């Protein structure tokens, strides 16, 4: 188990190194002169050559590409992501400022989705092909296919426009009314994903010989369902890790739609302002989140089922892909 954990952590670090390289390639790909762009910083006139040169020295842009790569790498390892072109503040500080709002949004959305997805998935799995199974399946199919910002726009239309229950703009400071629409938007996307998965897991477990043995011992259906849920915990964690990239993409869009002050909006605003350090910092943070969650999921699965840790290739990863 320990050897497996070490190997898995090492692989995660290697992946992170790859992510860092890709992010740097993005930076190097940027055409034009970021220094000229930044030194101008919103002004209409092009900046003076001295200002550009000074800026270049300040941000180390006067060095060659390999040197910049190494120094950028070294700084990124210390999570020193440079300063925003827009306001000169540290990207690290700006990220720390907006991350709580994003975590709040995603946490609430996931909790709400789980509260609905587990009972719905279990109910669908108990009677495969039944009315509830078909109805919820069709509904979730549509939800699953709708881009998050489309769901959000339709929710805005209904609840802010026609019913007038919720404000048009959202933010954590507005309390429940300010948070409910963005959370519902993110939650509906995750709900479709999760409930399909719960249904598959529970159905498989109910058809398992263990379920038959349980019934032979006189166990009720509720006990069988709970066992099924418990048994799929490993697969569930792998699945939750798969959900992370789509949650991040969803955050970018939903936060922009609702003007939610989170990390997704920081990225979108940075993209618009061509703010290289902010874009790279947020990209890096999203890569970090994905790698961390998939590593955590693998370690959790291996802890639940030690057999996974013994296989050399890491069985949890393969299992996760199948889900």
């Amino acid at each position, binding site marked *: 188990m320990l050897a497996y954990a070490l190997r898995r952590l090492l692989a995660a670090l290697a*992946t992170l190194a*790859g*992510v860092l390289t890709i992010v740097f390639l993005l930076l190097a790909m940027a055409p034009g002169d970021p220094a000229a762009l930044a030194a101008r910083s919103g002004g209409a006139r092009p900046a003076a050559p001295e200002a550009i040169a000074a800026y270049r020295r300040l941000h180390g842009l006067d060095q060659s590409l390999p040197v910049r790569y190494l120094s950028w790498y070294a700084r990124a390892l210390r999570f020193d992501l440079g300063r925003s072109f827009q306001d000169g503040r540290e990207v690290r500080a700006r990220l720390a400022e907006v991350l709580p709002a994003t975590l709040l949004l995603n946490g609430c959305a996931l909790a709400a989705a789980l509260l609905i997805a587990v009972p719905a998935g279990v109910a669908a799995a108990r009677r495969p092909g039944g009315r509830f199974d078909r109805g919820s399946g069709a509904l979730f199919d549509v939800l699953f296919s709708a881009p998050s910002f489309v769901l959000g726009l339709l929710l805005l239309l209904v609840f802010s426009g026609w019913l007038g229950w919720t404000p048009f703009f959202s933010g954590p400071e507005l309390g429940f009314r300010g948070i409910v629409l963005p959370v519902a938007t993110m939650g509906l996307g995750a709900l479709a994903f999760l409930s399909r998965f719960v249904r598959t897991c529970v159905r498989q477990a109910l058809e398992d010989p263990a379920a038959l043995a349980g019934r032979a011992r006189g166990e009720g259906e509720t006990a069988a369902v709970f066992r099924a849920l418990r048994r799929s915990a490993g697969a569930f964690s792998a699945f939750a890790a798969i959900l992370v990239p789509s949650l991040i993409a969803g955050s970018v869009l939903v936060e922009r739609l609702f003007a939610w002050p989170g990390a997704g909006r920081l990225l979108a605003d940075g993209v618009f302002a061509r703010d290289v350090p902010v874009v790279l910092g947020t990209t890096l943070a999203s890569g970090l989140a994905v790698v961390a969650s998939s590593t955590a999921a693998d370690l959790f699965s291996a802890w639940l089922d030690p057999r996974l840790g013994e296989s050399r290739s890491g069985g949890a990863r393969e299992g996760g892909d199948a889900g």
Partner: protein
Amino acid sequence: MRRLPGAAFSAAAGLLAIVLVSLLAPLVARSRPWVENARGETVLAAPVPWDPDAVDLDERLRRPSLVHWLGTDELGRDVLSRLLHGARVSVGAGAVASGVALVVGSLLGALAGLSGGRTDRMVLFGIEVIQALPALVLVAAAAAFLPPSFLLAAFLIGLTGWTDSARIVRAEARRLREAPFVSAARAAGAGGGRLLFRHVLPHALPPALATAPYVLGAAVLTESGLSFLGLGTPPPSASWGRSLADGRDLVLTAPWCVIPPAVALVLLILAARRLGDAVTATGRSRMTSS
């Protein structure tokens, strides 16, 4: 030909209809009439006689009517015409991106599976790294530094979407590497390229092609998000994601600007995914029954 189940048929028909719309949009929705007489008078107008970019500030935010079937937007442009032309962006980007993804994925996957060893590890590592970054984030970050262009955005989306087909083709190629006919070809002196293109790829490709509808759906999803963020295809060309981004401020006053592109986008992605479900299910049942 094998009969497709009903769900697959309706999904395929829906997808085909949207593709047809995107192909025919310049013919159906244009202000230039279909038939003119010698004096330049209209004999037969196009069914939707509005250009998608024709601004008419006197006709702003009109409700749906017989003149503008789906109403007009904040610049007086015909919503229906923009909807039809917008299909070109979504379908075109989806097609280009999934094409790029399938080509890159199958080549890298086949190469990795066939050669094994270090090449295999490198490709697998590349897949891990690409998958560690959400497609939308990666494409948006790249698009931020590049000139806005339809083709570029579609290519970038394709370059983030090749990982699944690479995995599938790699698994097939690994299986085929030891197959008798591949060994025979190798013994007969076939080189790496010939083995790859003549012997392995033709067999490894079908399972990857079966996932093409999924890849298409994912690409359309990413493109719409990119357009929604204001990146990708530059204005004024009509695109569903951009219409929806503009629609944020209109959702209270003019919902007719928002609902058509929203429904169209969901239908396109739904049709692609349903078709993917059906094709993979058919493939699975065929494999188990034979």
